[in-house]
């Protein structure tokens, strides 16, 4: 054997060993192996959504609504500003980004001067002023529209990611595709599909509302609560830190399992005792650790809230973990300029009261406002529970605050849900078809090309080995079309060998010796095989960029298969032929091909 043959032997041998090592975690996930092994080779093939079961969702962000909402808020601000100057004006939004101001007295139109418009000049353009009718038309700046769209999409992805992380699904994928958001949750339980979809698609709102403590209304309600029932009345009190003012309040409480009874009681408040229009009663689920007296069960308590949200989450710029003087975890947040103004106004007027932090209509906490909160605020978590749990709670709240509300409703444009049984059935069927296909090809090659056919089969097997090892190394997901790609590669793997072998036969027919014929065959057929691989590769790349989900899985296996095939069917099989034709001491006159 020539020296180069040995070099190749070492190289190919190393590649095979490496491939086998990469396959171990996939093939034998529970094998007991030294820990250093697991440090290097821990990646394995994941089953795709169609095999493992799970949810595949594509959402479109309703950007129109995001823009409209933004314009609505601007319209409110302009209205406030003009009214402050004493003009009577009605402000309406028409279309998506047009605002019309109609002054009751056309003469008052002058009050919409540069001073009023100054804070809005970057967002609103004055389109026309009609002194006769007293109307002014404003338009939302077109550049801003694009900005809002971009922001809405990015924020929506973050929001969804924040929510999905809570499901505990192993490897969620949330990616942007054009203006769509693709969410993949392999391994999600079929029973939870409906719930997951409802949570992802929810247009959650973060709100800060003031608790109306010490109200006469709640006292009246408390008096109505039947004694010895599931609902109890609890008085509470706290002292304002700076002024020392005493706050007293009553709330209703029920054990977690008695939530319905509590809700029913509240819903039953009608007539004189109906909840006033500008107030609402909301519940918070309290954990035992937040109670000093140590009630063992979790329970719900009520808050009597001012209905209009003082500030909403959209003005939140940032939220982060932080620690108070006592070293207890808390949430620190930063509002943007506008939000800071609103927050300052809201908290300044309500020092000493409680402010409920509400996400998706559920109160997450209701701390006492100890001083005016401006741009920066803190949310302390009550209770003296397990510090680790507290830490976790803070992390969760930071996550919620950061992800916050969806900037716009989501429209679901695609959905695939696959139960786990479906996947198993598919895997079984795919195994059968793959086995039969491979067997047919192997037999054919053996009969038709004999020893050379054996080499081709060996090369094909190595091709499979490399392919699956590479897929494992990249932690690629194996989908149903991906399996089709694998099977197809079996067919294509022997194709290259057929092209080469036919060429070798031609050379032999010309009367060349096996050794020259093999070399000439491989050399001449190489570019044909190469070109064929390139065209397949091009088609594979187009397929990858066009498709999504399972189709991508197919494209990936196809692309990987093309590369490994070039290696195995051209170079490795050539190397194996060298053994056949170069055996030491003998000169072969025939070739089993």
């Amino acid at each position, binding site marked *: 054997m020539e020296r180069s043959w040995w070099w190749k032997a070492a190289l190919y041998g190393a590649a095979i060993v490496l491939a086998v090592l990469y396959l171990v975690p996939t093939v034998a996930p529970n094998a007991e192996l030294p820990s250093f092994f697991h440090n290097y080779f821990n990646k394995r093939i994941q089953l795709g959504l169609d095999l493992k*079961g799970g949810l595949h969702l594509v959402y*479109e962000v309703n950007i129109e609504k995001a823009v409209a*909402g933004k314009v609505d808020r601007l319209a409110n601000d302009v209205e406030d500003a003009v009214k402050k100057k004493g003009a009577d004006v009605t402000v309406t939004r028409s279309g998506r980004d047009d605002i019309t101001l109609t002054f009751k007295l056309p003469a008052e139109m002058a009050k919409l001067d540069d001073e009023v418009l100054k804070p809005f000049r970057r967002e609103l353009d004055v389109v026309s002023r009609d002194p006769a009718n007293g109307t002014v038309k404003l338009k939302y700046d077109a550049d801003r529209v694009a900005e809002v769209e971009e922001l809405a999409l990015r924020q929506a992805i973050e929001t969804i990611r924040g929510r999905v992380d809570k499901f505990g699904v192993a490897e969620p994928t949330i990616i942007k595709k054009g203006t769509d958001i693709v969410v993949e949750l392999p391994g999600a339980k*079929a029973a939870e599909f409906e719930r997951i*979809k*409802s949570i992802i*698609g929810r*247009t959650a709102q973060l709100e800060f509302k003031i608790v109306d403590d010490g109200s006469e209304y709640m006292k009246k309600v408390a008096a109505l609560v039947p004694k010895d029932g599931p609902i109890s009345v609890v008085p509470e009190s706290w002292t304002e830190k700076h002024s020392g003012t005493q706050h007293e309040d009553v709330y209703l409480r029920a054990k977690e399992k008695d939530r319905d009874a509590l809700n029913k009681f509240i*819903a039953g408040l009608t007539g004189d005792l109906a909840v006033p*229009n500008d107030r609402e009663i909301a519940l918070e689920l309290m954990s035992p650790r937040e109670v000093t007296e140590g009630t063992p069960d979790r329970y719900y308590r009520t808050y009597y809230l001012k*209905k209009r949200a003082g500030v909403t989450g959209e003005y939140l710029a940032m939220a982060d973990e932080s620690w108070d003087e006592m070293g207890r975890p808390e949430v620190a947040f930063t509002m943007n300029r506008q939000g800071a103004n609103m927050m300052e106004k809201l908290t300044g007027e309500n020092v000493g009261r409680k402010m409920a932090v509400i996400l998706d209509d559920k109160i997450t906490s209701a701390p006492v406002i100890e001083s005016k909160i401006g741009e920066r605020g803190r949310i302390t978590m009550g209770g003296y529970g397990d510090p680790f749990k507290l830490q976790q709670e803070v992390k969760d709240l930071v996550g919620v605050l950061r992800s916050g509300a969806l900037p716009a*409703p989501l*429209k*679901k*444009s*695609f*959905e695939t*849900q696959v*139960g786990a049984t*479906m996947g198993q059935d*598919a895997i079984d*069927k*795919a195994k*059968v*078809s*793959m086995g039969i*296909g491979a067997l*047919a*090809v192997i037999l*054919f090659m053996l009969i038709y090309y*004999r020893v050379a056919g054996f080499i081709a089969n060996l090369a094909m097997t190595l091709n499979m080995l490399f392919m699956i090892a590479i897929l494992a190394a990249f932690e690629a997901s194996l989908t*149903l*079309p991906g399996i*089709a790609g694998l*099977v*197809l590669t079996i067919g294509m793997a*022997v*194709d290259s060998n*057929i*092209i080469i072998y*036919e060429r070798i*036969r031609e050379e032999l*027919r010309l*009367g060349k*010796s096996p050794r020259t014929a093999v070399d000439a065959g491989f050399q*001449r057929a190489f570019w044909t095989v190469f*070109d*064929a691989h*390139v*065209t397949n590769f091009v*088609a*594979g790349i187009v*397929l990858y*960029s*066009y498709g999504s989900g*399972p*189709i991508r899985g*197919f*494209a990936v296996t*196809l692309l990987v298969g093309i590369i490994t095939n070039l290696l195995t069917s051209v170079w490795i099989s050539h190397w194996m032929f060298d053994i056949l034709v170069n055996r030491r001491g003998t000169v072969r006159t025939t070739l089993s091909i």
Partner: protein
Amino acid sequence: MAEQQKFFEVIKSGTDVDFIGTKKYWIGVSIFLVLLTFVMLPINAFVLKDRGHVLNWGVDFKGGTELVVEFSKPVQASQVRAALSAAGLHNADVVKYGSVNTNLSFMIRLGAVSILSDEQAKHVETALARVGDASLRKFESSEGGDKIYLRFDKNLEPKAIAAALQTAGTESTDVQPFGPTQDSTYEVTLIGMDSMVRKALDAKLGAGTVKEIPQVSSVGAKAGKQLQVDGVRALLGAILLIVIYVAFRFDFRYGPGTIVALLHDAIITVGAFAVTYREFSLTTLAAILTIIGFSMNDTIVVFDRIRENAAKYRDRKFDKVVNHAINETLSRTILTSATVFFVTLAMNIFGIGVIRDFAFAMNVGVIVGTYSSIFIASPILIWLNDKYLALQKRQSARPERNVRKPIRRDEEEATEP
């Protein structure tokens, strides 16, 4: 010197079939098949009442919902259809699913994505005109179909809205305020199509008839349209890229033949789906893209030999060279196609769901692809070569007019092997 070896051969060496001489018959067959495809599309859409679309679009292209339903007892497709129809899900497409012939599992395809059909939406809007003491100002259902937005003139309890919806025959999983409280706008999340189908079937066929709904997919109509457009674009993009590569590796005369051959393969494969009215899904499109890559394999094998022989036998007529090359490569063309054909045939017979459609497309495509490299790509190459030679002759007839001609000729010879 080695002795002459005998091989196991399907195509004997020295075979000499006159492919090029009889090309007009073969091209005739191709034209017929392509025309058949183009005729079949409108026939499907307008003539055959039970088809109704140019192709049997899968939900990913057409939009709608596709469910696989497993029953706990055998049922008839007609019963399923009737049960769905009774619940307002008309024109459901119900076919047996899986290879086991037990009437236990069916695939149901519905045009709707949402449980809220247009008429049902109108009905709900009227029914919710007044809820409690609030009246409905605005009713909006999202295009994706899983949500509706309701704006009232007064704030309401979400529960009251859910109850009103229930009375109107529409079930929701979640009702909650949307936007600022003073807007009195509520977002309603409706139950999914699968819950609706389960209810409809259990109601008519007895509770517990539906064992499981293991697979549901739904696609909005707009997204489906977009996929169709993207699909055609991807197909043409792939063809263009391949042709650029071929023109670069061979020379420009080899380009047009491949374009026509690839289009031919794609069109006839689509035709097979039009005639059999099998489901044309995203996977089918993936198969066609694969076919295009694969069909090139055969074409390249033939073209490579043509180029090699053209350099070797410069004195022979080009069409003879081509015919000889096709014959020489005939056995590898047939063998390579056969291996892929049988592998995909195994998938077609033993596979499931999308794998089957994929395999069927591949089966058709492999045959057509092999055929096209011999009978379409090669004749076009000959025709272009003749035109090219004629052009060269005309140019050399007036040498003094074209000063750059000799240089061009040198270049030409340098690139020509």
